[in-house]
């Protein structure tokens, strides 16, 4: 892993026009001024509840939804792309370098294609190989990396279990030789017993192929075990961002703390009712003023209701957007 960032965003915003505003059309701010660096070769975790904008951010970085504000750059050493304006041949080239792995391996694979054809399709669509032999060689190589054998390639997806299907999806995403992969809840639909297997495979690919991952998940324990860095989103805003160990050892934002205490403990005697959040995430079309978390935050003061906290960079690499994080850190035992 190097320190050079692969992706740098600055005030990146994504908005959608929705049909249901009282006065004409409302603007839904799904991603709101997010600035982050994803270092080359890292496993970058993005967490938050449904509606926090984590999926939209991932899609925006893949140029699957249009960005409506801010900038985003992609630098892999070979190319330097401004993602906000990317189009034409460079966009096509970017598609080869950035890929997505979906959540549901049952929906993501065409039931009418053999596994070989599923994995080969990106190569054919992007015109990356010239002959069938070349395509077959690439397919076989990547299939082997994803622990699929030749026998598997001839079959149709219905013959496979969830874990095997996810390995097929991964092979398909990797076949074009991408440098950047967005894995959106890629293990959420899998059973625990095979979830670990897929996670280990992703880590292996990160190491062996020097791929940078943006790992979107709502499962903090999975993120803790796989990611080098964690960013927490709430209602489109980045509220905390730091190396994994720091976040888990001493979370700074009350929202991050609440997320941790909501994880069901495996200890049957620890049925504590720690600090749990009440209420739900507000609708993104009707966002609260001030700090967006103030409606659910146990530490809200007057300032939180009116003034939105900026993401602070205290110099230790542990960024947080909260007016009160310093005093809260002093009063709570980490």
């Amino acid at each position: 892993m190097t320190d050079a960032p692969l992706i740098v965003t600055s005030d990146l915003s994504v908005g959608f026009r929705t049909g249901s505003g009282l006065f004409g059309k409302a603007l839904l701010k799904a991603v709101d001024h997010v600035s982050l660096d994803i270092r080359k070769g890292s496993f970058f975790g993005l967490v938050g509840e449904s509606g926090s904008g984590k999926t939209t951010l991932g899609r925006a970085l893949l140029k699957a939804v249009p960005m409506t504000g801010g900038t985003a750059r992609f630098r892999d050493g070979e190319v330097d792309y401004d993602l906000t304006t990317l189009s034409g041949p460079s966009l096509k080239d970017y598609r080869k370098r950035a890929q997505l792995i979906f959540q549901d391996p049952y929906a993501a694979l065409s039931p009418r294609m053999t596994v070989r054809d599923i994995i080969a399709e990106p190569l054919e669509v992007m015109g990356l190989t010239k002959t069938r032999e070349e395509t077959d060689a690439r397919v076989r190589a990547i299939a082997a990396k994803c622990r699929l054998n030749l026998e598997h390639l001839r079959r149709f997806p219905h013959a496979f279990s969830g874990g095997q299907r996810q390995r097929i999806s991964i092979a398909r995403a990797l076949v074009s030789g991408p440098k950047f992969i967005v894995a959106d809840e890629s293990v959420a639909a899998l059973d625990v017993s095979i979830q670990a297997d897929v996670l280990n495979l992703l880590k292996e690919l990160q190491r062996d192929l020097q791929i940078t991952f943006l790992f979107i998940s709502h499962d903090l324990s999975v993120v803790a075990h796989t990611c080098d860095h964690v960013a927490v989103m709430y209602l489109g805003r980045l509220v905390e961002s730091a190396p994994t160990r720091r976040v888990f050892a001493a979370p700074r934002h009350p929202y991050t703390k609440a997320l941790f205490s909501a994880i069901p403990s495996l200890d049957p005697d620890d049925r504590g009712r720690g600090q749990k959040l009440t209420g739900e995430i507000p609708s993104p079309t009707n966002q609260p003023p001030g700090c967006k978390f103030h409606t659910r935050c146990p530490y809200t003061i007057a300032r939180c209701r009116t003034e939105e906290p900026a993401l602070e960079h205290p110099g230790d690499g542990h960024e947080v957007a909260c007016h009160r994080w310093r005093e809260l850190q002093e009063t709570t035992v980490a």
Partner: protein
Amino acid sequence: MTALIEVSNLTIRFRTDEGLVTAVEDVSFTLGKGEVMGLVGESGSGKSVTAKALMSLNARNAVYGEDSRITLHADTGPVEVLKLKTARELKIVRGGAISMIFQEPMASFAPAITIGRQMVEQLQLHGDMSKARAKEISVEMLDRVGISDPARRFDQYAFELSGGMRQRAMIAMALSTRPKLLIADEPTTALDVTIQAQVIDLMKDLVNEFHMGIVFITHDLGVIAQTADKVSVMYLGRLIEEGPVREVIRNPKHPYTRGLIAALPKLDDLDAPLTPVAGDIPSPLERPAGCVFHTRCPKILGEVCRTALPGDTQVNPTHRVACHLYPPGGPA
């Protein structure tokens, strides 16, 4: 503890184009009144099929074993669930003594009928009561599960509620007929952790208040540890381990249960490697002979596991395991 429902030798096969497929095989357990049982296992382990059998909800191509029995101890006396045939007979269990909540609450509410009307309808179906009384009970239940402004929510449609609210409404509807047994099939899986924590707390409160038995189906052992009194672990249709929640989580016996616990990412030790249960669950069309887990078992003893079905061994009076590592009568 008095028994609420007794399941013995439950075997369920489905007639399919590819022949008879075994989904559940020789499963027996007893659930007491007010007891919460966690039913754990991966997809294809037969946990949902088992739970649906308690209400006789499985599809028509289900074939039950000759000696399979499900006895529900209702207020009116014991009921043989699998002998109930007509819709009228089945009313005793469906929505009467037993209610069920599902993973996806949006799919469980009719989208074009208000939540209130659906609640009133089922109350009137099961009890002889006026519409006004049914509405009163429904609003009370909505309030009880923590839905704000219940009188207004009563007239709303399911799509107007958030995911967490919908799941609460689902629970309110399931409990309004005062069931003796609640079957909860992955009720928190589709929810965010923060909302999951709220729903779990709610369910714990309701168990104390209504004193009903719960069969809690989930693949999340953390949720089980937080809610259940006892745990039953299923694999490929067989119940392989059962015991009190503390016992099974702290002192698991079956290699599969051990594997499941080891596969969980743990927050208190970030350096521990993630260890999957090796291999994939076999297709139900290719059920292994002998112990169903032998194709993935790290502790396989040899021929005995490949050919002989392990019997139940009592580790202690409340904890049993079906594995050749623990021969009956031997040390466990």
